[in-house]
Every structure is written in C-alpha cells, then in structure tokens.
C-alpha cells in the first residue's frame, strides 16, 4: 500500500510509480468521497501525481466535493499552480 485512508484524509506515503499505484489512490479518493463532502489529500512522499488522479479529483469537485491537497515537494507544488489547479482545489505547501 502506498497510501492509507483515515476518514476523509488520505496520506500518500510512498512514490506513485505504476498505474496500479494511481488506481489505488483513485480508489481511496472514491472511498473518502463516500464518507465526507471534504477530502484532504496529503502528498507526503511522491514527486509524481499522474493526470488520471487529477482527473478523478476534478470529477469529485464537479460532483460537489471540497478538495484540499497538502504537498511537500516544492516542484510538485509549483506544477499544481502552473496547471491552475489552485482554481479548483485548495492547495497548501507543507
């Protein structure tokens, strides 16, 4: 498991490398969405954040969920801002 869920908080603890890793995160996001209207995603130890996860977050946002993403990596944080993802989600640098 590269990620774990507690209520509406998902922690990504290891790098997302494979498609299987992405799908694991997507599945946890969908689980969190069933528990709460607010999802908090903590990207603690991954540089990459594939576009299929971003697409899932956008779908959840469109369905009325509030998404907060906490990012450790400086470059990933900049990338999120460059992609204008801060317009859709609350993005915080840790």
């Amino acid at each position, binding site marked *: 498991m590269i990620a774990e869920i507690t209520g509406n908080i998902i922690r990504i603890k290891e*790098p997302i*490398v494979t498609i299987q890793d992405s799908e694991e995160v997507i599945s946890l996001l969908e689980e969190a969405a069933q528990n709460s209207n607010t999802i908090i995603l903590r990207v603690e130890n991954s*540089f*990459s954040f594939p576009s299929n996860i971003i697409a899932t977050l956008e*779908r959840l946002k469109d369905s009325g969920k509030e998404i907060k993403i906490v990012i450790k990596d400086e470059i990933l944080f900049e990338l999120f801002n460059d992609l*204008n993802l801060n317009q859709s989600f609350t993005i915080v640098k840790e």
Partner: protein
Amino acid sequence: MKIAILSENVELIDRISSYLNESGYKVVTFSTNPSMFIQTLEAPYPDVVLVDYDTKEISGPDVVKEIKKKNPNIVTVLLIPEVSPELVENGIEAGADDFMCKDWAFPKFQIRMRLLKRMIKSNKKEAALFKKLREDIQYKNFQENLAMTKHSKIIKNELSMFFEDDNLIETYYKPKDILSGDTIFSIWLGRDRYVMGIIDAMGKGLSASLTSVNATSFLEYSIKKAAEYNDFSFNRSIRDFINYTKAILLEKEMLSAILIYIEGDNIHYANFGMPPIYTPEEKLISNNHPINILTKNFRIDCAKLPKNFFALSDGLIESPMKESHYPYYAKFIKIYKNANFLKDLAKDFEEYAIQKDDVSIIHFKKDEPYEEIFEYQTEIADKSDIDKTLKDFFMADLPQKNKIIYILQELLMNTLEHSVYNMKNKKQHLSYKDMEKVRDSTKVKIDISKKDEYIKFIYEEDSHGFDLNVLNELVFSKYHGRGLKIVRNLSEALFFNRKGNKLKIFLKDKK
C-alpha cells in the same frame, strides 16, 4: 419588506407582530421552533429575520449563523434582553446585522425599523450592482476565451514544438490582451523547408487584432496553396501579402512583420520594422520599413542558417524591468546567447519584466550530439506492460529519475489510450474493456542521453502518435491535454516530429 420573527416566547411574537403591523410592515412568518424554521428556510427568503437571543433548543447566535449559511443576504436582527457588550459581541461574531432590546417601547422600535428599511434598500441596490458586474465579467471571460480559441484555430502554428533531424523549432506566444495585435505562424513546406513569422499590427485592441489575424490568415493560406501546387516562392508570397495588407490597413495604420524562410542551410528573411533576428554571432537587422498603404518595394536578404536564433516582437525587449523600469532589452542582450531553450528566456522575462505588450518569440536551434546513457525498448499492450516499464525505470540509476518517471507515466498512458485503444474523449470515463482495441500492441523505444547539464529524453512509438493539430489548442484548454501540459511543464523544452510519434524532451540535471 418581508419580515420573519423567530422566538419560543409567544407573547414576544405577538407584541412585535402588532408593532410591525401598526407600522405597516408585513410579517410573513413567525415560528416558535428554531430548528424547523432553519430547515424549511428557502426562497423566496424574508428580507429580515428577528431572532430571539434566548431560545432554548438552539441559541440565538447559532440560529443567526445557520440563517447566514443558507443566505448571507438575509438581514438578521437579534432580540436581546438588555444592551450588554457580551451579548452584542456574541451576536456580531455569529454574523448578526443589528440588535434590538426586547423591552423597547413602540416609538424606539419604529425608529429602528425605519433605519433597517433604509439599510435593506441600500443592500439590495448594492447586491443588484454586484450581480450585474459578475454577469458582465463572466460574459467578458467567456467571449475572451472563445476569441482565443478562434485565434488558435485561424492561425496555424505548426512548428510550435517541432523537430526534424537536428532542427529544433519552438515558439512562445503571450498576448497582453486577448484581442492581440501579435500573431505568430509557422508552416512546414517540406524536408528542411519552413516558413515562419511574427506579425505585429501597430496599436492595440480590436482594430489591431483584426489587421494582424486577417493578414496572417491570408499569408498562411496563400503559402499553403502555393505549396500544394508545388509553386511556392517566398518573394511572391511576400508581394501578395503586402498587397493584401495594404488593402485592409487604415490610412495611418502600419504593420510590422518578420517573415523567415528556412531552406536547407540558408535563411531568407524580410523584416518590416521588427527587432533583428538575434544569433549568438550577429544581429540580422530589419531590412524594410513597416508596411503602410504606400509600401511598394521590399527586400529579402539571405544568410547562412545560424545554429541558434531568436526572432521576436518588440513586446519582449521594450517591456520595462520590474525594479529599474529600464527596458528589458538590456537584460535580454546579455542572456539570450546563453539561453538554450525558450523556457530560459520566458522564465527570465516573467520574473524580471512587466509585460506591457504582446510577446511573441520564435526560436530555432540545431540539436547537438549527446552521450547516450540509457536505452530501453518495450511493447505496450495493456496496463501491466506500463507498470513493468515504470518499475524498470524506478530501479535504474538515472539522473532526474523522478521527473523521467512522471513524464513516462503520462506518455505511456497516452500510448495505451490513443494508440493501442481508441480513446477519443477522456471524459467518457470508460474502462479499457469497454473500449475498442485498435491494435494488439505498440512498440516503444526510449533513449536517454546527456550533455553537460542537459538530459535528452527521446520517446518513440511505432504508431500514429500525437495529434499535432490539437497541440496549440491544448495550451489554451482548461481541462484537456493535462498530461501534455505536465510533460511540458516538467521539461525545459519539448519537440514532436512531424508525424507526432517521436518526442525529444530536454531536462535540466539540476543538482
């Protein structure tokens, strides 16, 4: 003015209702059950809710909070037993707009209601103004985005991220306003034969934009038609362009343009009042005046194709520096010779200058040999093949491995979705088993090489590749092509071959 009263005290409701009726106000609701009142509160909302501070089931300030959550525009007035700083502070914190003492006699109550009425009238006027402003801004944004999409549809910039053999071409286009006076175009005519240019209509706004887009559109169309009949002549294209432009220019209007034709090892150029072509060795200066309604003759010069050049509009070099307000030119002239890719220049400009005009840049560069450090070949038929490849890269000893893996994730998924399967629209959210498999597998070859502080990452697949026609539109699209935007953002430069099935990606090996 529609008023609701909320209190568990029936006597208080009766007294205030009679005060209000006597003053000519209409009580639309009164309730002795705060929770029920909040639950059933819906449009059309009352203008004012008078809330008893001393409700038992849920406190008065909490009722105010809930009302404000449902509609912040409802004016809430707390009915307090006495004027005490503590009660008032609690109310303000909850969002109450005003206070009245429960034991106020009729005259005092009436005066306060008149003041409230005035406040509501003013609030409504302000709310209507904001609503109109919001609608106007939404409409303007919608139209501007539409205009930008249309602009990228009319003007084809085929070589915006292009490579052929060792020729690398990239362009940068950042309009100051959506109605831009700059247009940038580039056309592939044949192997080692490209026409490109920047057109800058003097002035700003709709008139300049119409001139620029119209003139470029004509030039682009006529060049393509000539090429189609194998009858392209740079000289004749420019003559036709001038004649066409003269016919659409206003009396005092002028148009600057830099038009470039690369043919093998030569560069032909006609520069009508634009900044020079900057090469590391020299500046190929403007050889014509800007085009106006009297322009008759023009000149084309030819030089040996430089290994590296920048052609640009004046918006880049004339914009002031953030700190000194001197033109960015002084900084540009120092750094452009060492700028390997457009991103170096664009980042510096965005960091140090205040953009005052449209900025367009064309960059041509001869690729150099790099030392190979990693080679990989695989065949992608399903997701497990992607995972195997990604794991192999994760285990390999590579510079900038994080970035390479992130880029690979996006490229391999693109190969699977658009080459092996036929996923036309990602919004379909289909699983692979529901999608049409158009081929059994796609072969992928990856080469990584290094030179000084740069890493060259070449990705090649044996299928149709990316649809290059949509590349420019993707840049302006909010939701589509995110994978490509990620790759572009992570890299220093990104180039596609003409077919779209081979990419050259340059990364910086930052320690």
